[in-house]
């Protein structure tokens, strides 16, 4: 068990300098999700227009893994169609199971080490579950 598998520089960078942290202006879908077993929480906002995710921002409390994952997810999902976003969430859960998955947003691959730390997978998937729920909520 190598800690550096988990805490890659790119993860720490997203943790210390999160992208898309804050609230969206204007109309947005808001999803509040928490991880009841550990207290982490995320409030994700997404603006979905014409079948595309126009913008996404998040606020929340959590560990380096959950917050860096939220930072990467919100960045990666912007401009994607709903189908592409859902596919990305699918790929991400594959990544957590140790499967190979490619992302056009390369930072996400830094989270592949989380699959060696089963207790932390829930941290990494929180934001992605919120995104999935948000798309369901948008009814598209």
């Amino acid at each position: 068990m190598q800690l550096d598998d988990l805490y890659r520089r790119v993860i720490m960078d997203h943790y210390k300098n999160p992208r898309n942290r804050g609230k969206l202006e204007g109309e947005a879908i808001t999803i509040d999700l928490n991880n009841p077993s550990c207290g982490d929480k995320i409030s994700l906002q997404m603006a979905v227009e014409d079948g595309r995710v126009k913008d996404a921002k998040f606020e929340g409390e959590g560990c380096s893994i959950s917050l860096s994952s939220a930072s990467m997810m919100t960045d990666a999902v912007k401009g994607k169609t709903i189908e592409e976003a859902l596919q990305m969430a699918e790929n991400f859960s594959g990544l957590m199971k140790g499967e190979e998955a490619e992302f056009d947003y390369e930072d996400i691959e830094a989270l592949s080490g989380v699959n060696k730390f089963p207790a932390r997978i829930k941290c990494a998937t929180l934001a992605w579950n919120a995104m999935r729920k948000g798309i369901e909520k948008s009814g598209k």
Partner: protein
Amino acid sequence: MKASELRRHFPILDQEINGHPLVYLDSAATSQKPVAVIEALKHYYQWENANVHRGVHTLGSRATDAYEGARETVAAFLNARSTEEIIFTRGTTTAINLVAQSYAQSVCREGDEIVITPLEHHSNLIPWQQVAKRTGATLKYIPLQPDGSIRLEDVEATITERTKMVAVVYVSNVMAVVNPVKQIAEIAHRHGAKILVDGAQSTPHLKVDVQELDCDFYAFSGHKMCGPTGIGALYGKKELLENMEPIEFGGEMIDHVGLYESTWKDLPWRFEGGTPIIAGAVGLGAAIRFLEEIGLDAIDRHEKELTAYAMERMSKIDDLVIYGPKEERAGLITFNLGDIHPHDVATVLDAEGVAVRAGHHCCQPLMRWLNVSATARASFYLYNTEEDVDRLVAALLKTKEYFGYAAG
């Protein structure tokens, strides 16, 4: 007692985790099991297993003797007046829910009060929220001091003539405070209220005497005190239990069954519907004998010494915040290390072989009171040593260094 010698009773401790000898500091979540308990379970299943209270055959008698023998052990351990006052349950949570649903729900009316504290584990909070919702009673909280302790004058101010039920934790699983439950019971009784004590974190560590505490109900779990999971008990004063209705119907709790009406067995079986956790009770009995052989006073003393040593060493770590009182605390230390999230702390400690808890510890209102989303917690038991504390401290220093480096 010497913890280093006691360790040989716990084979699980003798292993490496991630290349380091295991340091287990999560006993407040669940304790490890001594060979005596593991062997008792094995012996029961190998030589005595049968259903209880109904078999005419020899094994049925052996199983019944083993199960009821365990009840006698529990009754003596808590100093209950009789075995009728000991109801086996799945654990503390089930025991508290039984009192909430069977007792409190039938005595509380609109305008009545139920008094608890912000220290309560979810298991001793949500059942009372539910009773309040269903009956129209009001849920009131005894306020806390900044270190998490309770002042008796605040107890006096919170409990009134309207209070029907007081439910309070004996030892907090987060703040490590030991509540003055005897005095709280006296105040509750003076106002005509009944008191339940959540003994999940006290029973494993200090001598409990339910008659001396004069509590009406006392709940605890076996798995935090060297016993198996899935077994615990509710102590209740006989005169109260006698007037309570069961909440689980069927199997073992039945006396006479008619097509439309049935009657229940006597205490304590009235509250033990279905086939009970027989092996669990046997294992709990063995755990109590094991603890009594070492002596609860000796365990208490050992944990106090170890906690004082840990407090002294940990308070020297820069940026480490310890929650709860500085002194007069039970054998656990809840903390945060700078702005490093407790999950990250726990993962680095685990990589060093040190097992601690991280999260909200099933005390979300208390986390909000502390103004944190989560904390880390190291909890000690009879098998922990100063060397374990040294390893914890070294791993915490490494965590700081690692996150300093990784973030750089």
